[in-house]
C-alpha cells in the first residue's frame, strides 16, 4: 500500500532524535566546530542512547537489538531498519552532522562486517561496542591515488604464515584515528583489478599500523578525518572478512560496493538534515524581517525561492525513503541509493547557498549556524561517491549495456 505516514516505531525514533538534536546537538554545534572536536562527555552521553535511534546497529547474537543497516532482511520478516536509519539521521543532522558522524559505534565499518563477515567475525568485532566507553569502527577504502576509481587501490596484502602483511596508505578516513578497528580494503595484486581485492578488519595496536595526519577541513570540522599508514602491518588471517572462501570471483569488490546501497541513503539523509536546518533558518528570517519597511515575504522572488527549496527538499527526502524502503524489502537498490545521494547532495548544496544569500551579511558571520552549514554541506557531493560517480552508477543501471566510463 502506497503510504507515507510513519509507523509508531518510526515516529518515536524521529521524535527522540529530534529532541536530542534540539537539546544537546544544536547548543554545542558552533563551539565544537571551532574546537575541531566534540567533548567525550557528550559522546558518552549519546552512546547511552544506542538501542534507541541507532537501534539495530549491533546484531542480536551479541546482545544487540537485531537487524541493522546493511542487514539482508529475509523476505518474510521485513525490516524497518533502513527507514528508521534515514529518519533518525535527518533529525540528528538537523542538530549537528559532525556529531552524527562521530557517534560511537561501528559507523561505516558496520555494514561490510555485517554483510561479508562470518558469524564468528561478527560476534568478535561487534562485541566491543557492548563494553563501556567510547568505541568506534571505521571504513578505509580511499587512498591518495584512488578515490572514485576504487578498483585502482594500491594497498597491498601478502600472506605470510598465519598473517597477512598490509602495506600502503589510506586517507580521509572518518574516525580513523580513534577506531578500535578499521575495515581496510587491499589488493593481492593490482594487476588483477577487482578480483584481487580483500577486506580486512585491522585492529588498533596491530604492529605496523599507525595513524598519520589528522586533516583540517572546510566543514564537518568536529568530525575526525585521518590518514592511516600500513608498513607491513601484521593482520591475523582470522581478520580477513568472510574468510578465503569469500573471494572466489570478484566478491571482494562487490562487498565494498554493496555497503553503499545502505549507507548512501543514510548519508543523503544526513545532508538533508543540514539542508532542512538551513531552510528553516531562511524561512524564519524571511518571515520575521523587514526591508525598507516592507515585510520580506512581499518580495516575491524570495518567497518563490523558499517554496521551490522546500519542494526540492521534500523530493529528495522521498528519494531517500524510497531507497531505504527497497533495502528494507530486500530489493536491489543500488540505482535508487545513488539517486537519493546524488539528488540530496545537489538540493542540499543549493538550499544552504540560498540560506546564506537570504540572511545576507547575517549569513556570513561565523557566529551564525548557516555559515557553518554552508561549509558542512559541500562534502556531501564528494564522500560516499561524488555526484559524478552517482550519475555513473545510475546511468549504468538504466542502460541495457553498461558503458565503459
Amino acid at each position, binding site marked *: *500500500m*502506497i*503510504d*507515507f*505516514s*510513519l*509507523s*509508531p516505531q*518510526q515516529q518515536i525514533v524521529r521524535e527522540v532524535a529530534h529532541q536530542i538534536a534540539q537539546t544537546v546537538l544544536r547548543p554545542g554545534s558552533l563551539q565544537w566546530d571551532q574546537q575541531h572536536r566534540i567533548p567525550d562527555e557528550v559522546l558518552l552521553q549519546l552512546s547511552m542512547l544506542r538501542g534507541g535511534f541507532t537501534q539495530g546497529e549491533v546484531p542480536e547474537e551479541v546482545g544487540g537489538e537485531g537487524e541493522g543497516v546493511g542487514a539482508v532482511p529475509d523476505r518474510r520478516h521485513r525490516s*524497518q531498519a533502513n*527507514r528508521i536509519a534515514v529518519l533518525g539521521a535527518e533529525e540528528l543532522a538537523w542538530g549537528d552532522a559532525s556529531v552524527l558522524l562521530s557517534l560511537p559505534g561501528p559507523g561505516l565499518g558496520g555494514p561490510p562486517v555485517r554483510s561479508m563477515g562470518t558469524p564468528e567475525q561478527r560476534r568478535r568485532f561487534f562485541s566491543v561496542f557492548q563494553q563501556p566507553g567510547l568505541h568506534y569502527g571505521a571504513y578505509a577504502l580511499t587512498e591518495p591515488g584512488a578515490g572514485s576509481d576504487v578498483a585502482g587501490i594500491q594497498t597491498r596484502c601478502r600472506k605470510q604464515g598465519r598473517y597477512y602483511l598490509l602495506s600502503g596508505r589510506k586517507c580521509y578516513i572518518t574516525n580513523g584515528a580513534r577506531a578500535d578497528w578499521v575495515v581496510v580494503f587491499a589488493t593481492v595484486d593490482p594487476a588483477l583489478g577487482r578480483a584481487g581485492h580483500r577486506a580486512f578488519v585491522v585492529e588498533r595496536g596491530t604492529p605496523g599500523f599507525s595513524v598519520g595526519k589528522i586533516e583540517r577541513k572546510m566543514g564537518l570540522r568536529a568530525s575526525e578525518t585521518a590518514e592511516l599508514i600500513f608498513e607491513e602491518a601484521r593482520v591475523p588471517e582470522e581478520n580477513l572478512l568472510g574468510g578465503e572462501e569469500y573471494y572466489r570471483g570478484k566478491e571482494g569488490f562487490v562487498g565494498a560496493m554493496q555497503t553503499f546501497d545502505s549507507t548512501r541513503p543514510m548519508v543523503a539523509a544526513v545532508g538533508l538534515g543540514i539542508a532542512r536546518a538551513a531552510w528553516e533558518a531562511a*524561512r524564519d528570517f*524571511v*518571515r520575521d524581517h523587514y526591508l525598507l519597511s516592507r*515585510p520580506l*515575504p*512581499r*518580495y*516575491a522572488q524570495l*518567497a*518563490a525561492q*523558499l*517554496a*521551490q527549496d*522546500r*519542494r*526540492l527538499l*521534500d*523530493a*529528495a527526502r*522521498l*528519494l531517500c*525513503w*524510497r531507497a*531505504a*524502503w*527497497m533495502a528494507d*524489502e530486500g530489493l536491489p537498490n543500488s540505482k535508487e541509493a545513488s*539517486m537519493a545521494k*546524488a*539528488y540530496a547532495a545537489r538540493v542540499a548544496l543549493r538550499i544552504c547557498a540560498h540560506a546564506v544569500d537570504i540572511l545576507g551579511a547575517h549569513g556570513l558571520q561565523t557566529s551564525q549556524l548557516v555559515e557553518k552549514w554552508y561549509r558542512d554541506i559541500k562534502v556531501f557531493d564528494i564522500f560516499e561517491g561524488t555526484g*559524478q560517480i*552517482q*550519475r*555513473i552508477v*545510475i*546511468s549504468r543501471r*538504466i*542502460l*541495457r*549495456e553498461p*558503458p*565503459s*566510463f
Partner: protein
Amino acid sequence: MHKAMISFALDDDQRLLQDTVRRFCREVLREQMRRHEQQGGLLPEVEQAFAELGLIDLELDEGLPHRTAALVHEELAWGDPGAAVALWTPHLCAGALRELGTPEQQARLLARLRRGPDQRYGRGAVAYAEGGPGQGATVAVPTRGGYVLSGTKRFVLHAPQAELTIVFAQLDGGCQGMGAFAIAGRPAADPQGSFRLGQRHELLGLRAAPAGELVLQEHLVPEEDRLRGGDDFCAAARRVFARAQLLTAARQVGLARAAYELALSYTQDRRAFGKPVAHFQAVAFALAEVHMEVESARWLLWQAAAEADAGRLDLALCAGAAAHACEAAFCAADWCVQLLGGAGFMEDFPAEKWLREAKALALVGGTPQLYEQIVAAQVLGQDPEGNPEGAGLPSPRLQPFLT
C-alpha cells in the same frame, strides 16, 4: 486495518488497474496519437473503449481515491497527454461539485456528466480565467430568484462540448468577492445566446481537447445553481484547485516518463563515433538527471495523494507536487527532443509533441508560478501578495489558464 508505514508498494487492485490502463494506452492511445491531435478530438471508438474501463463511473459515483487517480492519469498521459485530457470527461467538475455543492446539487448536477442515451458521457468544464486585456472580470449581480452573469471567460477546456460548466464570477465581499455557479447544458453556438461559445482557441498542445471562450451576456443563473461551498467557500475552492494540481502533476509525470523512455531507448540505438550515443558520459548523465526528476516527481505526487486519501489534503504538498512535475516534464521533454537530435524536431516522433504539451499542461488549472505562491503562502503563513484571504487561491491577477 492497514498499518501506517512508509511504503511505495502498490496493492493488488492498483497493480491490476495500472496494467489495464497501460495496455489501453499502448494499444490505443499511442496508435491514434497523431490522428487525435490532427482532428482535434477523439475517435468515438476510443472514447467507447475507455468508457468500458468504468473509471468515469467511479469518479462520478464516489470520486476516484487520490492515489488511484494518480496512477491512472500518469498512465493516460504516458499514452497521450492530449487524449488524456480529452478522455477525462468529468474534468474537475465531479470533485468541484462534491466540495462546493449541496447533496441535492450534487445529485442533480452530476447527472449531467453521466452516460447519455448516445453512450457518451457528459463533459464538464470549469471557467475561471477572465477575458482579454481591457475586459473586466465576469460579474454576478444578484437579482430576484438568482444571479445575472456577464463577462467573457477565456481558455476554457472542453467549453465547446460541455454539458455542465462551473463558472467563477465576482460577487461583492467574501473571498475576493468570488462565487461559483453551475450552468447546465451546452453553450449556444448562436451569437445571440446569453451563454454562448466565443472564439475557439488554437492550442500549442493538447489539441485533442478543444478549448474556447465562453461569453455570458446577462445570463440568469437560478439561486439553486449557486455553489456556496458550505461554510467556507474559500477553503472549499482551495481544495478544488488543489485536486486540479494533483491531476496536473499526474499527467506531467506520465508525460515525463514517456519522454524519458523514448530518450533512453533512442540513444542506445543511435550510434555515433563508433558507439551508442548513450555511452557518451554527457548523454548518460543527462538521462540519469531526467530519471531522477521523473521519479522524484512521482513520489511527491504519491505523498500528496496519500495524505489527501487519509483526509489530510495539504495545499502545500499538492502545489509542490504540481510545480515539481511541471519542471520534470519540461526537463524530460526538452532533453528528449535534444537527445533525438534532428529527429526530435520532426513529427515522426512524439518528442516534439511532448515538449509542446508539457508547456500546455503547465498552464492547465494553474501555473508553476501560482503553485510556488501557494507553497510560499503555506510555509510563510501569509500570502506573498499580502492578501490574507487569497492565500492558496488563484488571484485575479495571477490566473490559471485553461481551466
